[in-house]
């Protein structure tokens, strides 16, 4: 384990059994298949990929909402699979999550104060209700809401404000690590920037690490120190965000990047896209070799048979036969 990694994921596999009926053949969705990466202290690790690539499942497995089939997740030096009782509670306190949909992730029948207070009560952080209340007011201030919002219900807030409530709730227990699962994709453009800036500020002040999951590549590049690109349950490339963006190695990363619409008419209209043919194969029946071989323009025979392993290329790791010798 590298020295200052707060989280280390090794050969993680999360499968779902989707067999219907008793007599049919067993059907397994390999949502996350053999993924390894680490997140360092105070770092933002961005995870990108298209829908169905397993990025959300990976995030949820890390916060222990799903149990992996095999592999290990080490958080602050402890294997989280073995956590029980007090240690598990401690883990839950240190690892929090911000969800995608600010409408579905807040209980409409609880006031903002109750929502933010609940994790404090569960983790027994403060002794009196007054202390908790004071902390809620402080958190509301940190996330840019007003103290008198404490008695209101989620329905009275806009999407961006609700996402702030979700952030305040995650911060309520002083976590060290937050999994942000598409925290901005449900928000309007001018509000997205507000939330991204807020997340960055909080990180600076509280020394947090983030796993930032999103499909919006330009925002991910903006907020992340390092990026991992997922395709069909596999991590195909991983490295510092500027390197990955400007010199993508994996053919999928190249195609994904060329598909981003650039907000600049001259560049956008001149830009030649590598338009990928076809769509992502079903994760129930993934290709035998490289997961990307069915859509890859550079695929060779070997790619269809043998699965490439993650190899180190300069600052990055990439899983592609093109870079092996």
């Amino acid at each position, binding site marked *: 384990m590298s020295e200052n990694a707060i989280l280390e994921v090794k050969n993680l596999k999360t499968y779902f059994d989707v067999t219907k009926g008793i007599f049919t053949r067993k059907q397994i969705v390999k949502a996350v298949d053999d993924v390894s990466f680490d997140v360092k202290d105070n770092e933002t690790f961005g995870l990108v990929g298209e829908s169905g690539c397993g990025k959300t499942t990976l995030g949820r497995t890390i916060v222990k909402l799903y149990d992996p089939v095999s592999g290990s997740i080490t958080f602050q030096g402890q294997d989280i699979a073995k956590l029980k009782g007090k240690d598990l509670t401690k883990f839950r306190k240190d690892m929090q999550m911000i969800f995608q949909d600010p409408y579905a992730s807040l209980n409409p029948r609880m006031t903002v104060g109750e929502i933010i207070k609940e994790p404090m009560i569960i983790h027994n952080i403060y002794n009196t209700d007054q202390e908790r209340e004071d902390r809620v007011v402080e958190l509301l201030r940190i996330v840019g809401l007003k103290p008198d919002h404490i008695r209101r219900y989620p329905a009275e807030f806009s999407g*961006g404000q609700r996402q702030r409530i979700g952030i305040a709730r995650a911060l309520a227990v002083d976590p060290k690590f937050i999994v942000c699962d598409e925290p901005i994709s449900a928000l309007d*453009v*001018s509000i997205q920037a507000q939330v991204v800036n807020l997340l960055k500020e909080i990180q600076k002040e509280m020394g947090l690490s983030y796993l930032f999951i999103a499909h919006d590549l330009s925002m991910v590049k*903006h907020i992340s120190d390092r990026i991992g690109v997922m395709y069909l349950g596999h991590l195909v490339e991983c490295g510092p965000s500027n390197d990955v963006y400007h010199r993508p190695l994996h053919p999928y990363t190249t195609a994904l*990047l060329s598909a981003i619409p650039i907000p600049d*008419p001259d560049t*956008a209209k001149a830009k030649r896209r590598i338009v990928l043919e076809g*769509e992502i194969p079903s994760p129930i029946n993934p290709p035998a070799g490289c997961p990307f071989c069915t859509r890859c323009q550079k695929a060779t025979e070997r790619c269809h048979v043998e699965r490439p392993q993650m190899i180190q290329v300069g600052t990055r790791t990439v899983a592609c036969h093109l870079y092996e010798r």
Partner: protein
Amino acid sequence: MALLEVKNLSTEFTTAQGNVLAVRDVSFQVDQGEALGIVGESGSGKSQTMYSIIGLLADNGIITSGEVTFDGQNISRSQFKTKKDYDNFMRQFRGNSMAMIFQDPMTFLNPVIKIETQLVEPLMNHTKMNQSEARERALELMRKVGIPSPEKRIEQYPFEFSGGMRQRIVIAIALANNPKLIIADEPTTALDVTIQAQVLELIDELKVQGNSAIIMITHDLGVVAKLCDRIAIMYGGKIVEIGTDKDIFYDPKHPYTKGLLNCIANPEDDDEDELRPIPGSPPDLLNPPKGCPFVDRCEEAMKICKNYPPEVTVFSNTHQCSCWLLHEKAVAK
């Protein structure tokens, strides 16, 4: 002559809380073969403007004023005595002269009807084609939008298609009668980036080949930069700035347009500073501000902005903006 001309269009919705002024005095035009992008945040009235033009407003929506001219023909609601006359007329008009592509292909397509029936229906309703001719045309359309093995796929149901393929079917239905104007309401928002790229490429091709005009409603500035010749920025039910793609991106005049451009991340720029978000949130159109809709979030707002709606300042024959700061008597900061 402009293909579509909209003048002083206003639309209201009656709700239990009062009247929502969703579209307020909107004017613009679209020429043949041109792509106009309408950019705005949710609730800015961009979709309702289009629904007002194409006659698809919800029952509680009323067009209170305005004139819509399409290809020299006045198609405003005020031309018709009853709502029924208007609806009957528009039913023929839609799908023939103008067509719409919707955001979510799954709610647009009927899940229990075969693709064939859904594609053939607009053809048989609007032309004299018989069943087999219409089927031939349907297959041709499916080929045109890039659906592999159309003979097999035409027999299938929407659930058997992926999101990108479904959106292609929706586009094929819109193209059925070679409309002169295609209105696309966030056609790629529900799709993944690589699929979005495919669909945008397709729409771009249609524009070049078919010479039809396109109105693209979106909140994604990257999409308009790629596809559109002119861009209108909507805020609080009004068009605050309109110009060519270059006018808007390289020489924005309205504080909202500037703010919008400042708060998106440009991946090409590595040393990008902090994003500069626009503080606050969009106005409530139940009680829209008397003056400029952007006044509450504008850093440069003056007294006059609160009370009087800004006049239109014309910079060139393509570029216009409504902002008091641009008025000749405004004090330069």
